[in-house]
């Protein structure tokens, strides 16, 4: 087990905050998820990559918001009443992440955990910490540190040439 998955079971006690993006359930460590708020007006920030939605005023603090759909190269979708923003804190920096639908909190056992499964060549596993299987549910556990790693600003001027990949689970 890697250092991050150790943290998942020891720091977060195996607790995940899970949400839907498209038809897939994703989870993040409860320790990293700080709060959930409804979708609010987002001020776009020029010269940023497409998945960077802009900034919001969260009780007087300006925090950036990214669209996980776009980050995972899934087709963009207008926010619905179910959409919400999950505020994630990594290394003391807050970022809001737009998700389609919030599911809730689950606790997983180390035995349910499977590290970075092989999902085939066309899926980017870089952002995935592992998977959890609970009855019929399959939860992809995200490695938020690499999802939110600061590679994004470097892509600013390259966004036009990024290919539009469609995640198979959508089809």
């Amino acid at each position: 087990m890697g250092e991050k998955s150790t943290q998942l079971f020891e720091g977060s006690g195996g607790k995940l905050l899970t949400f839907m993006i498209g038809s897939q359930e994703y989870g993040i460590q409860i320790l990293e998820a700080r709060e959930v708020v409804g979708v609010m007006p987002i001020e776009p920030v020029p010269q940023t990559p497409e998945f960077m939605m802009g900034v919001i005023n969260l009780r007087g603090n300006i925090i950036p918001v990214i669209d996980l759909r776009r980050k995972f190269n899934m087709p963009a979708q207008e926010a619905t009443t179910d959409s919400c923003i999950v505020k994630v804190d990594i290394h003391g920096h807050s970022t809001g992440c737009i998700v389609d639908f919030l599911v809730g909190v689950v606790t997983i056992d180390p035995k349910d955990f499977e590290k970075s499964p092989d999902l085939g060549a066309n899926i980017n596993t870089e952002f995935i910490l592992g998977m959890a299987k609970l009855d019929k549910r399959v939860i992809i556990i995200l490695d938020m540190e690499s999802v939110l790693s600061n590679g994004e600003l470097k892509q600013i001027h390259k966004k036009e040439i990024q290919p539009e990949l469609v995640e198979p689970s959508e089809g």
Partner: protein
Amino acid sequence: MSEDSHHELGELLTLPRERLRSSLLEADLRECRLTDLSDIMLPFDEITEIYHTHGLVDFEDAIAFLYQILGDIATEHVSHYTGLSYVLSVYELMEELTDTLIEGEADFAPFHLFLEKIKTTFKGVENVTVALASPEQTIVQDLPPNDIIEDGSVSDFINEVGDGLETVEEYLLTLEQDPEQDGYIDHIFRVMHTIKGTSGFLGMPTIGKVGHKTEDVLSEIRDGKRGLDPPVFELLFRSVDTLKNLIAQLTSLVQGQNAEPVNIGMFFRSLELVQSGVEPPAATPVQKAPPKAAEVSTGKPVAEAESGDDDEMLDMEAAMAEEAEADALAHPELTPKEPVAASQNGEMSPKPHPARPTVAESQKKMAAQLGTGKAAGVIQEMLKVPAERLDDLSNLVGEMVVALSLLTQNPAVDEMVDRRVHSQLDHLEKITESLRDKVLGIRMFPIGSVFSKLSRQVRDLSQKSGKKINLELSGADTLVDKSIIDNIYAPLMHLVRNSIDHGIEPPGERGDKESGGLVSLKAQHLGDAIEIEIRDDGQGLDSATILAKAQERGLVKNRETLSDKDIFNFIFMPGFSTAKVVTDISGRGVGMDVVRKTIEALRGKIETDSTRGKGTSFKLRLPLTTSIIEGLVVSVGDSRFIMPILDVLQTITPEKQDLKGVQGKDEEFFLLAGEMVPIVRLYELFQITPKVTSPNNAVVVVVLVGNRPYGLLVDEMLHRQQIVIQQLGARLKGLKGLSGGTILGDGRVGLIIDPISLIQEQHLHVGESL
């Protein structure tokens, strides 16, 4: 001796004395590390020779002693730092005596007395590990000289060291858990370095020595010569505790209370243990972290390791307490070895603190100049608050001011007939304003602390460069934001250095100007800004040379006619230097481009003015505070942006006939008072759908970037208001053209435009597309 021969002696000595003085200062400045001792030896030999031929037998003893120390330094029997501080203190007394001698008669009796005492002391220092190895060694420090107590230096020192030691302790505890945290060692090193430096500066040899020895060990750790084994931790914790006790003792001394002796023997004992452990392989320098790291990764509870260390700490504390008791008991009968350290402070003082008399004097002078007198004998109680909390507070207050101004400007409020509402609002406004001023005031400090650091440097530079410099300071009590204090020293130092090195002519080349060069530093408030001016009366900037260099480097594009101010701006380009010789003084440190960047990062501007033969002045204009600015709110499409008022020259909607096209593109420029101003379309740059595209329907905000006007095209100008700057966070750091964001009156976010990086980015794109 006759008058004449005195005079002759003075003349003979002038040159070697100057050289020796500058070598000693150089050695002192370089923390005595890379000093070439021959630089000190050679002029010293000359001086000795001169004394000898004049039959000045009184100095023979002292000279022999100094040779002995220098020899000890060379053979590493004594550290550079300690050795040189002895050399300096003896030599400074010799100089003083020589001066009195040249003028008339001198009384050598106190000097001989002093020499005897310092010799005894030095014998102890020479072999410090042997002399201090007794674990019962205690010390009562000397009361620092009154002048530095009065001007608050000691109080500052106590607070600073206290804070520093707190973090060192925290870091040590973390390091014990995880020795891989390399940055921590660097931090601890820096703290010890500061303690060593400052205590040397203020003349507190015991604290200095403990800091110095600890620094030595830390530097070995940094260089990988030593691992972080338990004896090293033991030593480092002892060092922290010893320093804390010494600081506590100093505090009692200054407050006029009884000072308990502090045990320093345990520290030197640990030091001895650590140092003797270098050679044998038993000391484990290679094996760094493995055991604990393994524990963590296999998922064993970390708590176990933690509690283990806690016990260790408790044990150590208990041991320390026991020692303290033992000390108290042991104190009355001092062991014969003991006075070694004590005498360093106590018996060595026929004059108050011979170690650094000049420094103390200059400090006193400075304090008088700066007018930062603090109550004598009082350790000001300081409250250390994380800067973040202050920032939060000032953000909130700023928002409150903004919210209130929106409320009072609300037409509905205006229409209210009840007069009481208006007077109550007025009252609320007054309270809010003074609250804001108070909160901002917490972050404000007099710029004098920066000035005093500069004056010491100027003194040293003036010695080194052989140019006599008069430094004039004014406005030292001008209050500026802490962030400015923290960042302004390096750019100011660079400008001052340039003035001394390149500006002020060498003596004899200054024409009919006074032989001593003048450098003046002036700080003052100008409306919402603070202006710091650095002026010298040197040779001025040579605009022809600068222009030639700029052309050579291809910085001048067309055959444009450049004003002197435009030309002076080239000196702030990266890597731009017209200096033919890179001197020791100006060859290091930050360049002029870094100066400009630092100033711009503080939202400030530099204005250069220079007259050939008369001198140069740099005016730095900085905002009073970096967290609240006056801004112009503009809109482009649905977005709103804020232009800092300091950057805005004017706003204008150009007439149709003033708009000019270029290369087939329409409306690229407009004429403003006969000058062609390029139009920068924000909607294009930021890819926003605008409401207006034609400049003669929209608003052009004219900004100055490097003395050149640019017109930023926006849809509409909304209003002017005070805004509280917030950073956009690490994720959006380094965005070109934007310096932050703010919460606007309706609760939405507005982005703050940074015209300088915006225009520079724009140029870059043009460059790329060509």
